[in-house]
């Protein structure tokens, strides 16, 4: 669990270490997902539900599509990087182009309840766990 510590530097470093440790973890291993397709996604658990954070700087909301069906989430769109006519490049590191990525969650999610927010270049997708998948407490007689 990512929690804050008294020293803000320690908190950020703890978060970075936790993210590193889950690099391409086996949580997705039985499925089809893997590193290499754009955009890179981080998936977190928040209580019973899931939060996916995708870095997509400089994308117009009208160029971004999100679909949710069964247990899959599909992110597609295009990232446009355009400079003036007659501009001469000194350095080019930004990537531009079309992307279309599907992630299959290894748990059942409620596709109808998926919500997303795009702010400051971060696409944050909130995927609630399906009711059928939530643990039920069993009363012991």
């Amino acid at each position, binding site marked *: 669990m990512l929690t804050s510590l008294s020293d803000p530097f320690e908190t*950020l*470093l703890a978060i970075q270490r936790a993210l590193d440790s*889950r690099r391409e973890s086996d949580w997705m291993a039985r499925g089809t997902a893997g590193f290499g397709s754009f955009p890179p996604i981080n*998936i977190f658990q928040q209580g019973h539900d899931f939060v996916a954070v995708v870095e997509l*700087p400089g994308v117009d909301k009208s160029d971004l599509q999100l679909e949710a069906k069964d247990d899959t989430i599909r992110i597609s769109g295009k990232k446009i990087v355009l400079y003036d006519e*007659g501009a001469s*490049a000194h350095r080019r590191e930004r990537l531009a182009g079309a992307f279309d990525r599907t992630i299959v969650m290894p748990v059942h999610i409620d596709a109808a309840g998926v919500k997303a927010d795009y702010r400051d270049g*971060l696409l944050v997708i909130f995927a609630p766990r399906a009711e059928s998948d939530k643990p039920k407490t069993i009363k012991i007689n």
Partner: protein
Amino acid sequence: MAQELAVQQKREVDKKEESTVPFRAFLPATDIFETDQALTVVLEMPGVSKDSVDVSLENDIVKIEGRIDYSKYEGLQPLYTEYNVGHYVRSFQLSNRIDQDAIKAEIEDGVMTLVLPKVEKAKPRRIAIN
């Protein structure tokens, strides 16, 4: 048909001196373009907003620092990660061709655009060929 985007790994800042505080920062992907009027520097810093970016100029070096709000990650348990997060830092040496008083900066959707106008005498002159 638009070319498909490939993913690129974030580059970490190469620390030249040892620091007294633990610090892992990243270099924002940067494009630098030049027109007759100005030099444009565009940096990608997803998660950075106007209030959390600093652009400073000292001794001909422009330094851009973008801070992310990592408090948003509190209470989240990482399950599967493909990239790490952290503050962004990058600096560039400016030549005397730049009018340092007229530098403009703006940031939108995690992309910061810095316009560095050239001083008058640095603008290219077309030479007539007899």
